[in-house]
């Protein structure tokens, strides 16, 4: 395989406030996922910087990045990525284990979080015993495990049906309001726009426009078509 250098992001200048609910929209290939990975410290920019709480994460070493991912950022994925061999509760407590939180406390907090996402009774279930929506709920609880400042959600409703997707979006919105977590999501889902404080449209590696919720015009007729 050859390695071709492709400039994906071309001058993105973006500030996101704490507690904001931001959606990143754009066609595939627009650099959405790349931007997303940069924000989450999953990928390092070849030039430029990403600041989280005054910390330039492109300067961090592997250990500090791991710490950042563990404590400051919670990830939610399109494919849920619940660890298959662990129960719901173990999945939720895993980030707490990495953070060095004692077992009892982790279990207690894990149960509280599962309660928050409405899955308290199913804490002993393995992922294959849970529906897609339930798995995503577990993933949300896991993302919240260490009280992160930011939750990054990459197409969180992409693999879910309409109603389940709506529930997940409502849950995310609730969390951002109650816990003051910043939520940044990359999405195609128009339902997501309804709850976003701001929508950032990306195309060809640049910010095309940034819309506030008040400015959004969503025609209801288009919701549902993907």
């Amino acid at each position: 395989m050859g390695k071709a250098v492709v400039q994906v992001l071309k001058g993105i200048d973006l500030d996101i406030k704490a507690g904001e609910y931001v959606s990143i929209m754009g066609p595939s290939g627009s650099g959405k996922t790349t931007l997303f990975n940069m924000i989450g410290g999953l990928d390092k920019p070849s030039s430029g910087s990403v600041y989280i709480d005054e910390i330039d994460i492109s300067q961090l070493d592997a250990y500090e990045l791991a710490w950042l991912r563990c404590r400051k950022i919670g990830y939610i994925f399109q494919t849920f990525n619940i660890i298959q061999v662990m129960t719901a509760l173990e999945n939720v407590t895993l980030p707490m284990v990495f953070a060095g939180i004692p077992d009892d406390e982790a279990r207690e907090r894990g149960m509280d979080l599962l309660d928050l996402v409405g899955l308290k009774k199913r804490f002993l279930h393995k992922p294959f015993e849970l529906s897609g929506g339930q798995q995503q709920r577990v993933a949300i609880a896991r993302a919240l495990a260490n009280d992160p400042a930011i939750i990054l959600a990459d197409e969180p409703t992409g693999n879910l049906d309409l109603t389940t997707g709506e529930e997940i979006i409502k849950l995310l919105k609730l969390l951002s309001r109650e816990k003051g977590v910043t939520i940044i999501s990359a999405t195609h889902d128009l339902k997501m726009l309804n709850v976003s404080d701001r929508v950032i449209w990306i195309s060809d590696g640049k910010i095309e426009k940034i819309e506030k919720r008040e400015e959004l015009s969503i025609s209801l007729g288009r919701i549902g078509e993907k």
Partner: protein
Amino acid sequence: MQEKTKPNLPQKQVVLPFKKSVEIAVKSIKSRFFRTLITTMSLILAISFYAYIKVNLDIISSIAASNDQTAIQKLSLQGIEVPEEGRALGLSPQERWILFLSLLVCVVGIVNTQLMAVADRFREIGTMKCLGALDRFILRLFLIEAVLQGLIGSALGGAAGAVIAFLGALIKYGSSVIGLISLNQILTSVLSAIVLGCLLSIVGVLYPALLAAKMQPVEAMRGRD
């Protein structure tokens, strides 16, 4: 020059206690029982072969060293030459070569199945890294799994080899050999087989585990289902 602003992150720590690592490794082995069985199978076979050869040698040596003339005669009938007084029985060059080859094939088999296991677990590894796991956590998990597999596999293999060698001796030389065999010697042989098995298991998992540990979280996330 541009000044590097090294941030001061408060109470930075990312940990995975050893006990937890073992817990996770055991869980992973349990829930992937079939795959573990395949990985362990080549180890069981190779180690049982090794243990068989070693224990067989132990038995023959103790018969040769005894004064039991009928048993020694049976040895000669099997085509085994009893060495002169004071010289130990050893493996023939062919036996050594076959033994070496079988162990080599075993390691290659382990590397192969472990590489597949790592590919299978791309997503899991990537997820763990996103949750804050360090490279060495992943490495440690794979190593612990390998040691556990090595212990179980070579214990089974060692026991099987020893039992087969023992039964073979019973059939070939008669029940009188039971009194001649030194249990200590056989235990030492089986123990050496178990240690060897663990080593082989670790050697086999090293490259796949390093590969897994070095993986960037994004790469892992892009991994297939």
